[in-house]
């Protein structure tokens, strides 16, 4: 389930390990998942020993899948039910399908943590977007969400979107990070902020969002090591857009539906090792298993998940 890098690697590896009949379900109209909106380079340095963009990296796997007779790809297919007995219901345009699988690999990726989860006080105007949604708007649709942006959180998506917005002529006023260091890769801090002269405010937080209909400005305040506001340190930043990049949450709602044990804090499967879940014959790989910083490692571990599923089927 899931035709991003994890699902594609798992399907190909399971096939190579001898699994005869594989169904790959992807909710979108293309394979590739989030890679399709990651048009920047930096992918594949480990796996392919060359630097690719996200769509290029995805395309390498899409081509392999096309040549593979034993893997049926079903696009625009949205799974709504998974039972402990591995019965699957999924929608696709024109049908509600039901199938049973002898093994299931969940490669459902992550969703973004949102403004709602970090409790930024203030109003709820237009102009506040999860950074990944803004990335999809700019790179997939060609829509520029605003003209003056502040970015909350220095995760990789936030850093990459700071640069991406700057390249589109948006004035990026700063990245506000409550921690002392960036959560993102060092190369992204350098290449996405420093090279573009975008300020990064460590140990700061947005204390309020202003604006009735559209964002008008944000209040920023410095915090101490206990994350308490430092009086007198506040300043205002006029802007029409706030991008929120405060982490990712693995999507394990299907595993939960199938009775799998979930760590409530991280939303990851509780299991003995990587790619495993508490439900026999149900595996979870890629960002659904744990949040990765490089897609190369997703490919490596998800291929292992494909082999683990093959081994499980052989033993049965």
């Amino acid at each position, binding site marked *: 389930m899931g035709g991003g890098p994890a699902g594609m690697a798992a399907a190909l590896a399971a096939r190579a390990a001898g699994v005869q009949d594989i169904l790959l379900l992807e*909710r979108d109209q293309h394979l590739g998942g989030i890679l399709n909106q990651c048009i920047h380079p930096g992918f594949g340095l480990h796996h392919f020993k060359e630097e690719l963009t996200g769509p290029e990296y995805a395309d390498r796997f899409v081509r392999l899948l096309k040549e593979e007779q034993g893997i049926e790809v079903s696009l*625009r297919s*949205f799974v*709504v039910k998974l039972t402990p007995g591995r019965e699957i*219901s999924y*929608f*696709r*345009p*024109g*049908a*509600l399908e039901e199938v049973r699988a002898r093994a299931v690999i969940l490669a459902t990726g992550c*969703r*973004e943590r*949102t*403004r*709602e989860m970090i*409790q930024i*006080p*203030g*109003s*709820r*105007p*237009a*102009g506040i*977007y*999860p950074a*990944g*949604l803004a990335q*999809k*708007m*700019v790179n*997939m*649709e*060609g*829509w*520029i*969400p*605003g*003209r003056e942006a502040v970015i909350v959180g220095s995760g990789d998506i936030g850093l990459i979107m700071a640069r991406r917005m700057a390249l*589109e002529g948006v004035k990026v006023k700063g990245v506000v990070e409550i921690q002392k260091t960036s959560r993102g890769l060092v190369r992204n801090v350098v290449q996405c902020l420093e090279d573009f002269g975008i300020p990064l405010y460590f140990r700061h937080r947005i204390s309020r969002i202003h604006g*009735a*209909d*559209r964002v008008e400005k944000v209040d920023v305040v410095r915090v101490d090591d206990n994350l308490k506001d430092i009086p007198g340190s506040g300043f205002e930043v006029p802007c*029409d857009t706030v991008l929120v990049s405060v982490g990712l949450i693995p999507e394990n*709602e299907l595993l*939960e539906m199938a009775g799998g044990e979930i760590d*409530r*804090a991280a939303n990851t499967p509780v299991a003995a090792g990587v790619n495993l879940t508490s439900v026999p014959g149900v595996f979870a790989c890629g960002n659904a298993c744990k949040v990765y910083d490089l897609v190369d490692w997703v490919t490596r571990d998800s291929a292992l998940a494909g082999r683990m599923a093959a081994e499980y089927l052989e033993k049965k």
Partner: protein
Amino acid sequence: MTYDVAIVGAGITGAAIARELSRYRLKVLLLEKEAEPAFGVSKSNSGIIHAGTQNPPTSVKAWLCVEGNRLLRGGLAADLGLHFVQCGQLIVVFDLKDLPELEKIKKEGADLGIKGLELVDRAWLAGHEPNLGPEVKAALYVPTAGIISPYRFVYALVENAVKNGVELKTSRRVTAIRRPAGGGFELEAGGEVYRSRFLVNAAGLFADEVSALAGAPTFKITPRKGEEYLLDKKREHIANHIIFPLPSKNSKGILIIKTSDGNPMIGPTAHDSGDKTDLSTTDDGLAEVLAGARRMMPSISKGDIIAYFAGLRPVSGKDFIIRHEDAAPGLVNAAGIQSPGLTSAPAIAVMVADLLRKHGLALEAKADFHRTRPRTVHLFQVPPEETRRLVKKDPAYGDIVCRCELVSAQEIRDAVRRGAATLDGIKFRTRAQAGRCHGGFCTTRIIKIMQEELGFPVTAITKRGPGSELIKDERK
């Protein structure tokens, strides 16, 4: 052109009045200051259809609530194609010493004609509401209470009113009201002038200002803020009833609210506020709501919360203000409609129509009144067999747009065709973007469907009306 009646405000009260008046041979105008109906007080409603308990027994609202509940259960919800669930409510006590309080609520309720009220003990509760915590000792069971989607209630009333000839005009804030010498009213709203013989004021938080504009500065509205916290749909079955503690002086307390869409809610707080636009949530509010809910149901956790919002109740004293204003002949106020306003709305509408009649408006029934409105499809409410039939009939029902709340492309299209013109309007009608990812995955898809249906450029699509545009520019 002169309307017979102009109604100011397309929240639940104005919508119900418009639909009631649309039974008669009248020219009715419904003015709304926001871009769509239900965008004011009604959008933050809990969606509870109260039985009529917990109101002062001699109040107007006690009687209107019982009557509104009876009208809804007696056929109105079905006529309007609404998903009403009569799940019942429990009013719980943490100390058996408080049983006399429950007895009092029971007696007052029975006197108002509420049926089936029953005191239940721990053993009953263990069987019927197993997640209640050990602190809960007994409860009053109120079987006629239920739940409904507050937005869809408003939209159904407005759609049915419009079908029956009412004119809806949105983005029309009333800025001036004149009373010409010959009688009636002249309203300035959104740059237009409208004339009407009678004026109904259902302007929610701003009803005091509208009444004053019309020449009757007879009351003041004080906003009372309520913060609500929405839980993940995964917790849908945490409660089988709407669960209340004993009421406090200002409110019915912090509740655990089943909702007709599945996601349970906890809240609301009740704090008077000086600001009619303050919809911010607070750390204190969250702590208060969590503590209140967890005392009744300890398994509720902060991690279950996926969204939060605040609403403002338009409070003016302890009771509703529903009256003709002699200072401004022809003006009927329906103001101070706080809880239980959603439940009472159909009865308020009948009462307002009667006040208009007493003051000279002839109510002649239309021969061709359309009483019913077809039910809208929501996949999350539909059993698998019907889903299969729908998808076969129309493949776009199988094209899922919102994955958290299971909303298809066809439902988004239906919503636009029924009047949704903003992203929030789509959310309130369909629940798309209302789940755990807050639109992270589906927003672009919804915007594209809106573009196709409405023919707008993407830069004209808004969150909730002019000024809240979502996209500033398109790449060349």
